[in-house]
């Protein structure tokens, strides 16, 4: 059975339709929109918090969104082990919600940054990266003002020790350099997971790198990983080998 995605729609979400488009038209999976005022997760297997400016984000990115009715359900869903993916503003919301540790500061140059970056997969044994390999470099765009990841030293050490850092900014060759860490994140962190492994937040936009016509398909790795993980756990529709092959088409 095909897994079902839900894309959360806050009033100021602006990557909601993009994420919906990629999940339903490119990944060809049943996908529904989840309205922020509702309480119903509609039986989805994975909740995606898309990019945007949730409630205008005039206070702090994601600061108000975490109080919405739907987010209380998402929190409970995550606690039960449900998969939650936060992209950009979605990542910021997960931090504010406390589902992931740390906080976001303004980019080091104090400018909004929209550009393609390279990120390295640091951990390929997660629900979000199992379709990739450790050390693999993905080319995915970022678009944010507050993506400069911060966590107190003790938290940071724990994140590294538990291999919760899933993506790190790097150059095209996979080297983590100061120049490649465009927003100034501590330890060049681009994406982290929670301890249990079912919640991931990342600043780059995989939905913007899922079609060849847009210049990169590297972002599909994240969605394919989720599909691979969840659909293999169920009665398989196709043999796993076929699925793997399909990924490289």
């Amino acid at each position: 059975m095909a897994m079902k995605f839900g894309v959360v729609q806050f009033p100021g979400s602006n990557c909601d339709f993009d994420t919906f488009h990629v999940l339903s038209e490119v990944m060809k999976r049943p996908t529904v929109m989840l309205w922020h005022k509702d309480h119903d997760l509609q039986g989805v297997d994975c909740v995606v918090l898309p990019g945007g400016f949730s409630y205008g984000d005039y206070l702090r990115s994601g600061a108000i969104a975490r109080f919405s009715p739907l987010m209380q359900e998402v929190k409970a869903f995550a606690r039960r082990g449900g998969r939650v993916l936060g992209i950009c503003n979605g990542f910021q919301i997960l931090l504010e919600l406390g589902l992931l540790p740390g906080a976001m500061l303004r980019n080091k140059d104090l400018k909004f940054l929209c550009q393609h970056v390279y990120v390295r997969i640091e951990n390929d044994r997660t629900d979000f990266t199992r379709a990739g390999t450790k050390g693999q470099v993905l080319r995915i765009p970022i678009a944010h003002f507050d993506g400069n990841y911060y966590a107190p030293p003790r938290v940071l050490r724990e994140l590294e020790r538990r291999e919760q850092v899933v993506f790190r900014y790097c150059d095209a060759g996979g080297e983590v350099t100061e120049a490649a860490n465009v927003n100034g994140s501590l330890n060049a962190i681009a994406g982290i997971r929670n301890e249990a492994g079912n919640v991931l937040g990342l600043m780059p936009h995989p939905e913007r790198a899922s079609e060849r016509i847009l210049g990169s398909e590297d972002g599909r790795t994240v969605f394919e990983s989720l599909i691979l993980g969840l659909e293999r756990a169920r009665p398989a529709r196709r043999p796993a080998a076929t699925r793997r092959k399909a990924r490289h088409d």
Partner: protein
Amino acid sequence: MIDRSLLERHNLTEDEYTLIVELIGKEPNLTELGIFSVMWSEHCGYKSSRVHLKRLPTEGRHVVQGPGENAGVLDIGGGQVIVFKIESHNHPSFIEPYQGAATGVGGILRDIFTMGARPIAVMDSLRFGPPDDPRNRSVMGGVVSGISGYGNAFGVPTVGGEVYFDPCYNLNPLVNVFCLGLADKDKVFYAKAEGAGNKVLYVGAKTGRDGIHGATMASAEFGKDTEHKRPNVQVGDPFKEKLLLEACLEVMDRRLIVGIQDMGAAGLTCSTTEMAAKGGMGIVVDLDKVPQREAGMTPYEILLSESQERMLLVAEPGKVAEVQAIFAKWDLDAPVIGEVVPGGRARITFKGQVVVDIPVDAVVNLCPAYDRPIAAPAPPPPAPALKDLPLPADLGEAFLAVLASPTVADKEWVFRQYDHMVQVNTALLPGADAALLRIKGSKRALAMTLDCNGLYTRLDPRTGARIAVAEACRNLACVGARPIGVTNCLNFGNPEKPEVMGQFEQAVTGLSEACRTFGIPVTGGNVSFYNDTEGLSIHPTPVIGVVGLMEDIGRAVTPGFKAAGDAVVLVGESFEELGGTEYLKTVHGLEAGAPPAIDLEQEKRNQDFLLEAIEARLVRSAHDLSEGGLAVALAESAFHDARKRGCQVDLEGTMRADALLFGESQSRVLVTCRRKDAGRLAKLAASRGVPVRVIGRVGGADLAVTRAGREILRVPVGTAYRAWKDSLPAYFKIRT
């Protein structure tokens, strides 16, 4: 009560006042005077430009809606239309760069979604004084942040545009925003109040005192007291605008409304009177029902406020509740503030008193049009004869100087502050000749570009305007798209100066000629006069926005070199022309001479040939020759190549080396193709009457050019790249 000084403060002449009295059959009260003042301002009434704009071609097979609505509408087939327009926000952006630019974006977005279209892309034409002056940097930084802050949050990609620098924009920056929207053909809405008894609903932000008389401000010269005008500038709220967008599109999608108009310049006044006039109806409005942000506002202030993010809707009484429910879903109120009535009068009440009672036709349609006196534009400063112009000792140095000149230099510092990818349609990133947006669910794509070289227009308004249109269309051809429609933003000085009107008249002539040659209609636009500060006018700057269509996005071409060994081909003919060039300006410090000549028929042939060659898959890269000429085009083609390959080019003839490298002769495109295809390309060109010449090949680490066997330029790509890439960021380095 109404005396000369009051009229002066309202920018109305005594003759205009006499006409108002005649039209409305009474002495206007202060509120009514305020209404005429904004509606008859240059900004809203086009009183100096109308007689000239009539000459522009507005008809064409794609045209659904030409000038006169919020934006133009073109049919692109497949049941879809595009809605597009440019607006200027020059004056507000000088007074408060961030908010001025932000609300400029907000305003044009509303113009587009008012018509039922979702905005899918924005582009900006920006002009500032040179960035070595900290004041210009501060204006530029603010404008770019404002565009970024508004567009990014709203969720529309800013896909490119242009940034020019010239001292004439020192105290008068230009901020022109071009927006493109996409809609279903059967769901386009107009600003019409029809059907007596229908309700008038107010939606969006509350009304405050901000922006009162913004429209009249945009219609007067700036002086030293501009500082004091600061309270006039409106503050934008992109989050509110996003809510408005979604709610408006939802009520339109469900066909719950009769008409809709945004409250832009002149706010409630403009929207109520225009909607009534277009519907051939009258309107009653109760100002007590208008949501107000501040206490104690007068009718004058409520009616003339330019608070942002507001819309006026007209709906049948039976549908009001449903409309209000949709707005409530998006946390917006939609109170009924009035009604459509027969009779053609706007009757506005406040605390039970009638405060305005005037015929809407007089306000909207009877603004006088002036055929202002015209004088020949001031002649350009003469350029020294070419024989007197010294050839730089080191052309490599000159080349690096041109690459680093702010106008030519890389603009990534600007466009990476814009979210240019949201909505996942952006197939070509900023920096390409034109932006290309795929249309989801099809193989087709829309292309858009903005162009104007203000120096050319200063030196020769008619030629400059022709070149602006030609270059815009050439940019589209370089990616493989055919132009289908034009919008313009005509930025000029004070129209009461005959030589400024002379520039305007000639520029419109040039535009009209070029649009006719290319067979593209002008579907609307904007005129911004009074771009004068302390008596100095800007260069006449008719900014041209062109939208193009591409049937198969798979054939899109990018400017970067593709493979070593490919043939470098120059399409079009080069002449010994250095007048008005970036080289002359940067290296010799001269803004002088005649701009390059343009033969529109030849231009069209060259573009048609290029499109044909692209469709036949003969072209691997294409890049327009513009500022900086052949040398800059070669360099940029190398920079856009991920591997930064150089090229070896061998030219013939006896032309001056600097004219050969940096001359800006028109109608030229730099193309590369596989070596084996060079013959086919040449043959196709010959059969279409287009001069082409294989001038070199891609490869090597240098940009190298010889003339008649002697090397005139050799610069490593890396050196050239750094000069081009690092120039703009160096002005804005932050120290932390």
